[in-house]
């Protein structure tokens, strides 16, 4: 017997909406930053776009995992999915982060 079955739909809408809102904010900030830089200095390639948005792809993947695992009421799917994503994110973090912190704005442009 599942509790609150009538709320499943609206819950899925809410969690999807928050993930899509975050994606939209990311795209907005990304485009805004490109606009504020000198036009033409960096041609935007598809590869670059895909690479820059890795965390968004992960986010959308997680959204799918969460909706599916909760829809199936499966703690196992939920737990194993999280572990896989965590491993991926650790690898991404270690690969993409300089050992020293990035420069602040003035430092980067000086």
């Amino acid at each position, binding site marked *: *017997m*599942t*509790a*609150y079955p009538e*709320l*499943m739909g*609206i*819950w899925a809408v*809410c*969690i999807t909406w*928050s*993930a899509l*809102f*975050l994606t939209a*904010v*990311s795209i907005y*900030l*990304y485009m*805004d*930053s490109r606009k504020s830089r000198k036009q033409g200095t960096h041609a935007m390639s598809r590869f670059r776009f895909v690479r*820059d*948005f*890795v*965390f*968004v792809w*992960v*986010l959308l993947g*997680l*959204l799918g995992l*969460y909706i599916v695992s*909760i*829809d199936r*009421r499966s*703690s196992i799917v*939920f*737990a194993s999915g*999280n*572990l896989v*994503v*965590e491993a991926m*994110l*650790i690898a*991404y*973090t*270690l690969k*993409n*982060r300089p*050992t*020293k*912190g*990035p*420069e*602040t*704005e*003035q*430092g*980067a442009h*000086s």
Partner: protein
Amino acid sequence: MGNCEIRGGCDTPLSKQKVQDLRKDYWSIRPTDAYGALETSELGLSEQEAQQRIETYGYNELPEKGLSWTQVLLRQFKNPVSGILFASAIVAGFFGQLQQSIAILAMILLSAVLGFYNEYNAEKTVRALRQSVSVKAVVTREGRPSEIDARLVVPGDLVTVYVGDVAPADLRIVQCKELQVNEAVLTGESFPVEKTSEGLDLQRPTPQQLTNYLFMGTVVQHGSGRGVVVSTGRHTEFGSISTSLAESRPETEFQRGVRKYGTMLISLTMALVIGIFVLNTAVGHPMIDSLLFSLAVAVGLVPELMPAIVTISLSQGARVMAKKQVVVKRLVSIEDFGNMDALCTDKTGTLTSGKIVLQDYWSLGKARDARILHYALLCNSAVTGEKITGNPMDAAIWEYAIANEIEGEIKSYVSVDEVPFDYQRRMMSTVVRKDGELTLVTKGAPESVLSKCKYAETDGKSGSIDSAQKLIDAKLAEYSGAGYRSLAVACKTIDAKNSYSVEDEANLTLLGFLIFTDPPKKDAEQAIAQLKKMGVDVKILTGDNELVAVKICEELKIPVKRVIRGPELTQMSSSEIRSAVEEGTIFARITPEQKLDVIKALRANGHVVGFMGDGVNDAPALHEADVGISVDSAVDVSKGAADIVLLEKDLSVLADGIEEGRKIFANTIKYILMGTSSNFGNMFSAAAASIFLPFLPMLPMQILFMNLLYDVSNMTLPSDNVDEEYTKWPRRWDIGFVRKFTLFFGPFSSLYDFLTFGIMLFIFGASASVFHSGWFVESFWTEVLVIFVIRTRRIPFVTSRPGKWLTVLTLSAVAFGTILPFTILGDFLGFAPLPAQYWVLLILMVATYLFLVDAGKVFFYKICKF
């Protein structure tokens, strides 16, 4: 002598009424009558009487504002955060929710008490430190002159002033010798005013007309004098002016930032509260419940402890800086000190030692003539003793002689007579006898002495001055171009007579020149290099000529982009000045008003401007700058107007202070970014969930409690470690960045809140109280643990370690939040124990959340710079 005992000084107490009338008519009486009128004598007061007068009239100091504990306490409530919370408490109380109202008031009180405790202690420390920045005065008591703290000067004291001294109080001059005083601080007049000791026949005179008075804060530029103290502290002319100076302080960059942040917070809160209330009412929830819930969300959004955390950060910073001999007089200036990107500095006394030294001397021939030094020592107005005082160039000659052990070489000379220095002649003469022969020695400004010379001596041979003129002109131009000051020394054999006069200063033989300089402070070059490395542009603002300023820049390795002179600035429009200040490195021959213009223009261009100065004329600029910095050797007025006083001559403390300011700013910004974004995310999901859930996602009291616990966990944030890159460059308040940060990181929190709602509802089929507990724990874990991710741009714990106390307190708060649902307090708040399986899912979920935020952080900082 009036009613005074001459021996041992005057012991008669001065009536209180008399002090209030002190300045009334002392200008009209004769100097000898001034002693009696002020109930003192030529021997000064006795120590006992002076002590009594301190008790009666108080210390000679100006009133300091904002130090009473009630004022400090009230200040804790004067911020937008408290305003929002007060409004929420009143509304909750009005609708009968006393518990909620009391909880909100408790939060306000907690924040206020924490803020008060830190700020009041900091104020006390600052007051104690301020007292260590003391000004001295030469006071004669019981017939003995001694140097005392100017605070201890009392009405009736006999004060002696020399060149360079600042009058410690308002004095009626009883004795003076060629006394000239700069009264710019009172009158704005930059030319010195000649003083007299004679009585004046004036009715209702203005301070400018009182030429037999010496006013507190004015600087002796020439000569010396002695006066009886007429009034002290706030009764002085300067006392009344300084009160108004302190009140009109412009808003600093940091204060502007906090104000803008408050405005942003209020708009965000108002929008959410109205939105939640309208939506909840629209979906059929009771109106009062909806209002109370929306108020709880508003409270949840507000970083209650922000004022307290800012105060703790600032007072901790002030303590650290005090250990480095930097007195922070105004706490709020620390962050601006760190964010400063343009430092305007006076030259003399700040970059240079402010003390003239004799660099060298030269004669026209190949060999240097030692008589130049001997004669300069004989023809000298400096007073030697334990301390060498008087004209700074004459004092420098003596210091050079003592350092090189040549002062003994003039013992064979006997001084016969002297023709003193005056500003018209710009030279002085002395008649000396050696082996029965009389010599008139003249020393003074080269052009003045040269005009009196007929001959010049080269390698012991005397010849016409005309033949040496070319060489002299070339040499003088060379030294002047290199920023040195010169004095010429000439002499002639003279016949014995009763007295000598300026008429005897003729047909002299030029011996040579003395070369003086005001050398840069030993560590100034290193300090300037450090500032450059830290992104602080140094500009020199000086009343001195451009040649001297350029020489100092060369010595300190400051690249000079453009030299702008005062007269040029006068011709410029406001927009031209704004453009010129960006290019200019040296602003030479400028007036105090022009210093102010330069600072205003830099601020208008968006710079956070520091000004470092030590003179009376620097006070307005120190007051106008975001950060006014003064040095211990500065005049009292300058130290009074400054926010920060460097007690050590060592300028390297500047860089330390800037670094400390940047650390404090970084930790304040961390709190604001973390608090605003995670609160926004949580409250946003609470608002959304309140619309579709059959019960409130969290009770108002639970929201308030979580918020309080979160804020407490942040209490040690001011002591957190700061990554090197945050202190490399000056940073600014950027509300646009805070907004972007909130918009980007807030939804992460919302996403995981919704996930928790799903787990609680669909996996565990939770009741309202279990749901509340589940969300409380998840929300609290994510909100608190994300500190470790957000506090750095590096890899948390791997390449950036958090502060020890931050780690301890944060993990303790997490532990407390975790066990809370199992406790009596949890029961009281409406929580229920959670199923064991939930904890496993929670750990996995929170770990994914933290890694995802970290990946998002990499993306965010790639595109949003701060």
